[in-house]
């Protein structure tokens, strides 16, 4: 999985820095707003619930603004690329499938989504000289899912949501008996 580092830059570091400071400052504002709703003063029983979080939000916003100012001060120095286009494509090619995997989990259950995710990830890997065979993909994805069922659901009694597939299997099992 190598990529050429001289591919064009997608975005300058300064913009990402600035974006993140705006984001963290906004979180601070939300925290302050939520605290004010709860009361930030001194009630009958001492400090009100919003007393402590309000200052957390205030410090978060203040530090974020200061970070933003520092970014502006170093604006020229931070013109270096944050990530090259090809490297970012690599990141997205992993992040988007994870997002789809997460989105699919409530619909299909954890097991089906995981098996499909692993299978897709292996199938898509075209960098290898020899792509994985169907048997290999099936064994690894089903094996990993089976192992997670054994470890989590069976041994440690942490129930994992199996989704509709689980219901069908449970139903089939009941009819079989």
């Amino acid at each position, binding site marked *: *999985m*190598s990529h050429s580092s001289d591919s064009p830059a997608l975005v300058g570091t300064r913009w*990402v820095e600035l974006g*993140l400071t705006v984001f*963290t400052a906004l979180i*601070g504002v939300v*925290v302050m707003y*939520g*605290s004010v709703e*709860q009361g930030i003063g001194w009630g009958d*029983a*001492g*400090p*009100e*619930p*919003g*007393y*402590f*979080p309000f200052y*957390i*939000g205030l*410090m*978060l916003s203040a*530090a*974020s603004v*200061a*970070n933003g100012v*520092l970014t502006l001060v170093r604006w020229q120095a931070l013109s270096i690329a*944050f*990530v090259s286009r090809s*490297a*970012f494509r*690599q*990141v997205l*090619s*992993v*992040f988007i499938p*994870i*997002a789809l*995997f*997460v989105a699919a*989990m*409530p619909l299909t259950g*954890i097991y089906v989504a*995981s098996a499909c*995710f*692993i299978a897709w*990830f*292996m199938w*898509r*890997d075209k960098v*290898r000289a020899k792509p994985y065979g169907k048997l290999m993909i099936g064994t*690894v994805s089903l094996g990993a899912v089976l192992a*997670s069922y054994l470890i*989590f659901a069976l041994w*440690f009694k*942490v*129930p*994992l*949501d199996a989704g509709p597939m689980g219901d069908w299997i449970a139903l089939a099992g009941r009819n079989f008996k």
Partner: protein
Amino acid sequence: MSEFDSLLQGMNLILTPGHIGLMVIGVLLGILVGVLPGLGAPNGVALLLPLTFTMSPVSAIILLSCMYWGALFGGSITSILFNIPGEPSSVATTFDGYPMAREGRAAEALTAAFSSALIGALAGVLLLTFLSTKIAAFAMSFSSPEFFAVYLLAFCTFIGMSKNPPLKTVVAMMIGFAMAAVGMDTVSGNLRLTFDQPILMTGISFEVAVIGLFGIGEILCTVEEGLVFRGEHARITPMVILRTWAKLPRYWWTIVRSTLVGCWMGITPGGPTAASFMSYSLARRFSKNRDNFGKGELEGVIAPETADHAAGTSALLPMLTLGIPGSATAAVMLGGLMIWGLHPGPTLFVEQHDFVWGLIASMYLGNVVSLIVVLATVPLFASILRIPFSIIAPIIIMVCAIGAYSVHNSFFDVVLMLGFGALGYLFKKLGYPIAPLVLAAVLGDKAEDAFRQSMLFSDGHLGIFWSNPLVGSLTTAALLMLFWPLISKALQTLMGLRKPQVVKPKSVL
């Protein structure tokens, strides 16, 4: 009861086949997460937490702490054989470990790393054995203002001593505090920062944040760097082990110095990463073979490894006695303790005598078990890294997702994990530290309680934090630490005025 009696009692408690079996499992899992990219000790422990709820606290802490030791050992395997630090704290081991492996001295480097690591770890445990009861007894006299001052000291040390920009550390920390505040207020029972969303009522779990920030964020960074695992091979034979052990006494001074550095950085929230870097740079400065550093010098492996493990074990000292973790992994374990219904802090030593001494005894045994297991399984774990990334990565991601889900059996947590993953990627790229966020997320509620109690005592006057010599010196020390970057800069300018030559700044601090 003396420490020695308590220790024997603890040994008695843990020397059962079941507990030793748990140790081996914990160490194996730990080496696994230490070796795999994207998984490390903090999120390994976070992933395992939901599985420990059905165990007794002693068994659970044995499993988790042994996982921590295993992960510390596993991190050195990848550093030496693959030039890839499996853990941030083993970055310094790559400097000389990998060159040694390239010269075909991988087995020697690994043996030296593991053995010196064991020495460092045992020194840390000895410190814990003989200091913890004294510190706990001293801390028994603490009331809320003292506790808040200790928390303040821990957080300010993080800000002042971090190698990341101080303001970025503050931002990361405050996000952690904000996370901790979401959900039910522990004092009034009001729902805070939930904005009438029922999904936020249970709060944001630190486990989910750890799994996302460390696990998914790390995977994204790995992908971007286009990592290729091309490692050296190693077979460790008894002959090599004996020959390396025969060489170790020559480096006794390096080991002693590294142990001291490690213990100090472990107790203060510097953590294992800073300890290993500092120890490496000290070893290089004082070594006779200075020029050979970076080219495969045995001393350059021994120094960071000893300090890394000494810091890793002594990080549990403030965690157990004061309820303040010295590293991100210790923070996650502390969260686990609270979930099991234990109250970390001085009272733990009185109320949970068996638990504490079982843990301390297991640390002696667990580290020895780790050394044996790791020496025997190096080829196995090295071969795991040769499995292609396109197989390992989706499995790691699946494990992370299941781990996040199993915290509250909620799919919302998995979505949160993804969000934290993206945030973790940005944080890593832009130099925001993650450990303070985790620390604040775990300690937020306790710090807030201590602060509000203190405010109640004093009717809202901050003067209470200087009301007696103890709390006053703690608070003052905290403020000194907070402004340390400015103070040290001012001192340097003063020194610079007197002496014209430029003082080379330390690379770590």
